[in-house]
């Protein structure tokens, strides 16, 4: 190729003040008009690299060239001025502002000294039409669905004149249908001359949407290749450095006695929204019941109500016949429930406490950990060593703070604690969210093993492929209700589940009755 690449990042090194080397001599090039997938495990340095490109982080060393010319971005403003836009994984929107206000934020059209609201609406509608990204200009962002929020984010970058769009794991929160819609939008953008960098760790999406793919591992680039020439197995190996089991081997389930029986569970939030409505289902010993659904349809509330973190408004939930609603979290745990919370940083771990300490927070008050008035540090130490080994937690030792671990290893600390509690019911919420392929594989295998050993597992996951591959039975939640139940997961397609997740299809209570 004679003309220089659109973007050329050369020899990028990023060392954070705490000594973590996030990028270690990265070369990354993007050609104009391509869809370039950037894949890698968590902590591989993808996001750091993109933050450098977007001016959010400055590289310790290295050079960025745009159309052959060296550039220095001191802030996102510089990057925006050079036509680079980024759609972040957690949306960067102001919930109480309207769609139009969000799109023009920071560069408002003005009339005299004031913000010209009419012009903002006009701009939004025009952009929306030009790129075929459907939004409601006057709607308050808080009240629009996730898919639209994402389109708002994309329009935001386009309003700022983006020619190069960086999308950071854009499909993580979407249904299959919404994902297809997004892919169409991306193709339309490229057709209008834009260039897209697509960060993901879903290899299937890489194959589907991208022209070229760059794989990162441990802060280095493992290779860039045309997508057509790469297989998913090959990409997975490049990401992890060894062969990975992408599917979980699962012996047939042997469901036993009902362990968790949820009946007519209702929860009204403090702000008065009905988040759970007449939810009923049963989880039996030795099976995994999966809960699928677009995030924000009551899954979080369901888990928190069942684990004693929120009061229920009505209904009942029994574990082996014993009511657990509105009990304290400790009472719930003492009746045999373990909980892998979706928000591991806030609810799963005490970040500044050590691994050993985190491993005993649910049991320090019992012997052998408690001896008289004091905690037996010898026992805690041995307990930590045992679990760190059994659950392959990669850490220099049990007495380092959990905050120093990678996301995957943090999650393993939680998994180690919850699994070793020998629960009769395990509630796992987003157990593999945002963690690397290796740890994901490990945790999924552990879940299946536990279930085969007779534990009842309630699995909530926004990753449809995950719930589908792990669950023995599956329910879909939509707007706080169970709208479909699938006793045989292999008999249903992702697309069909997607219809239920979007609320376009639902089963009648009579249809579901027999399976709940």
């Amino acid at each position, binding site marked *: 190729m004679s003309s220089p690449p659109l973007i050329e990042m050369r020899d990028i090194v990023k060392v954070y003040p705490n000594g973590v080397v996030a990028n270690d001599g990265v070369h990354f090039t993007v050609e104009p008009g391509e869809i370039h997938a950037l894949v890698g495990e968590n902590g591989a340095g993808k996001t750091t690299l993109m933050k450098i490109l977007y001016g959010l982080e400055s590289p310790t060393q290295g050079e960025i060239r745009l159309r052959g010319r060296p550039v220095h971005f001191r802030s996102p403003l510089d990057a925006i001025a050079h036509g680079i836009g980024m759609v972040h994984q957690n949306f*960067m929107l102001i919930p109480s502002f309207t769609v139009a206000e969000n799109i023009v934020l920071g560069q408002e059209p003005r009339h005299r000294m004031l913000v010209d609201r009419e012009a903002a609406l006009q701009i939004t509608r025009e952009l929306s039409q030009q790129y075929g990204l459907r939004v409601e200009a006057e709607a308050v962002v808080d009240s629009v669905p996730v898919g639209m929020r994402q389109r708002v984010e994309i329009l935001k970058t386009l309003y700022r004149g983006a020619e190069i769009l960086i999308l950071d794991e854009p499909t993580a929160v979407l249904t299959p249908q919404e994902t297809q819609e997004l892919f169409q939008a991306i193709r339309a953008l490229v057709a209008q001359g834009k260039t897209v960098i697509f960060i993901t760790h879903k290899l299937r999406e890489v194959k589907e949407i991208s022209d070229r793919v760059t794989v990162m591992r441990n802060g280095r680039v493992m290779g860039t290749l045309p997508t057509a020439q790469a297989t998913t197995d090959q990409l997975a190996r490049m990401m992890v450095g060894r062969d990975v089991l992408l599917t979980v081997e699962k012996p047939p389930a042997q469901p036993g006695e009902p362990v968790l029986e949820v009946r007519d569970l209702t929860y009204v939030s403090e702000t008065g929204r009905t988040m759970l409505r007449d939810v009923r289902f049963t989880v039996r010993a030795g099976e995994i019941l999966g809960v699928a659904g677009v995030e924000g349809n009551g899954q979080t509330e369901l888990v928190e109500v069942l684990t004693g973190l929120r009061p229920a408004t009505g209904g009942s939930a029994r574990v082996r016949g014993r009511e657990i609603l509105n009990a304290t979290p400790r009472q719930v745990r003492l009746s045999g429930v373990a909980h892998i919370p979706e928000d591991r940083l806030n609810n799963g771990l005490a970040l500044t406490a050590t691994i050993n300490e985190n491993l005993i927070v649910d049991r320090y008050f019992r012997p052998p950990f408690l001896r008289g008035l004091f905690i037996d540090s010898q026992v805690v130490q041995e307990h930590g060593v045992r679990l760190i080994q059994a659950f392959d937690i990669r850490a220099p030792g049990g007495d380092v703070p959990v905050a120093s671990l990678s996301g995957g290893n943090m999650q393993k600390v939680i998994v180690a604690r919850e699994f070793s509690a020998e629960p009769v019911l395990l509630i796992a919420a987003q157990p593999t969210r945002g963690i690397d392929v290796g740890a994901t594989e490990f945790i999924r295998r552990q879940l299946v093993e536990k279930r085969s050993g007779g534990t009842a597992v309630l699995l909530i996951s926004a990753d449809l492929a995950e719930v589908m591959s792990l669950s023995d039975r599956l329910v879909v939640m939509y707007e706080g209700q169970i709208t479909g139940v699938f006793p045989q997961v292999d008999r249903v397609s992702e697309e069909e589940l997607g219809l239920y997740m979007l609320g376009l299809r639902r089963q009648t209570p009579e249809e579901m009755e027999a399976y709940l």
Partner: protein
Amino acid sequence: MSIGLVLRGIFSALFVASVLRISTPLILPALGGLISDLAGVINIALEGIMLVAAFTGVVVSAYTQNVWLGVLAGLAVGTLFSLILALFHLYLKTDIILAGIALNIMAQGGTVFLLFTLTGDKGSSASLASGTVPRVVIPLLHDVPVLGTILSGHHIFTYLAFLLAVVVAVFLYRTPLGTHLRAVGENPEAAASVGINVVRVQTIAIGLSGLLASLGGLSLSMAYLSFFQNNMTAGRGFIALAAIFLGGRTPWGTLLAAVFFGFADALANQFGSLQVPPQWVQMIPYAATVIALVVYNVRRRRQAIERARRMQEQLHAQGTAFGGGD
């Protein structure tokens, strides 16, 4: 004196006028506090800023024999004082509550120390010949019975307070800077991602809150009274914070809540003439604050539950037929 006289007092034009007068040093800091609160930096130092401005205004006007120089100096020093909060919280990363408390203590001790140094009196600046801002007599209106009494003849700060409520509302909701300020308060990361300088916006917000709180302080020492008194703010900076929350974090709500607290204060003055222990009477504004906040929260909760119930009934009425897309 009988309760009848008190009641007659309340329903008089003079009483309404006194509510407006007494509300002034609440409205101004409350509006200021609202600006910084919406920017995500709660200014707990309003009280201290008011004291510093009140003191500076009196001293400068006494030594220059110019009221307006006093006012200007009060505004300048009060605003600068508020920027110390910005410096500590935004640039040196101290906890904003701790920094705010420190400033309040510093203001209270510092003003008394300087007062004693200058006048030899720890209680008040009565020995200094400081000025007061003029009263505004509105021609024609002044002579209308009742209305004239209520609306005319106040100190300039009172009119300014109500005018500024409008200005602050326009600023917050219609100007680019106000919009950025609210964006920063709601999601600083998002604001930063579109190139808004979060620290700069928050510094401006704290500065503006300092400016408005300073006006409030000056209205105490150069209008409401004509001298500075040890701890003359008497918790108004904190009541102003309560007014923000009671007012639902909106300019109009805040204005109304501040006037309500002013009303409670004025009421206490009226009751002062009754055979009630003065401590009880002095409690009225503070008790009103607590009760108002409780009532407000209980009501909001009840409304929410009611709304939820109605929604649920509606859904049940529609049966399983409902199920919209996005």
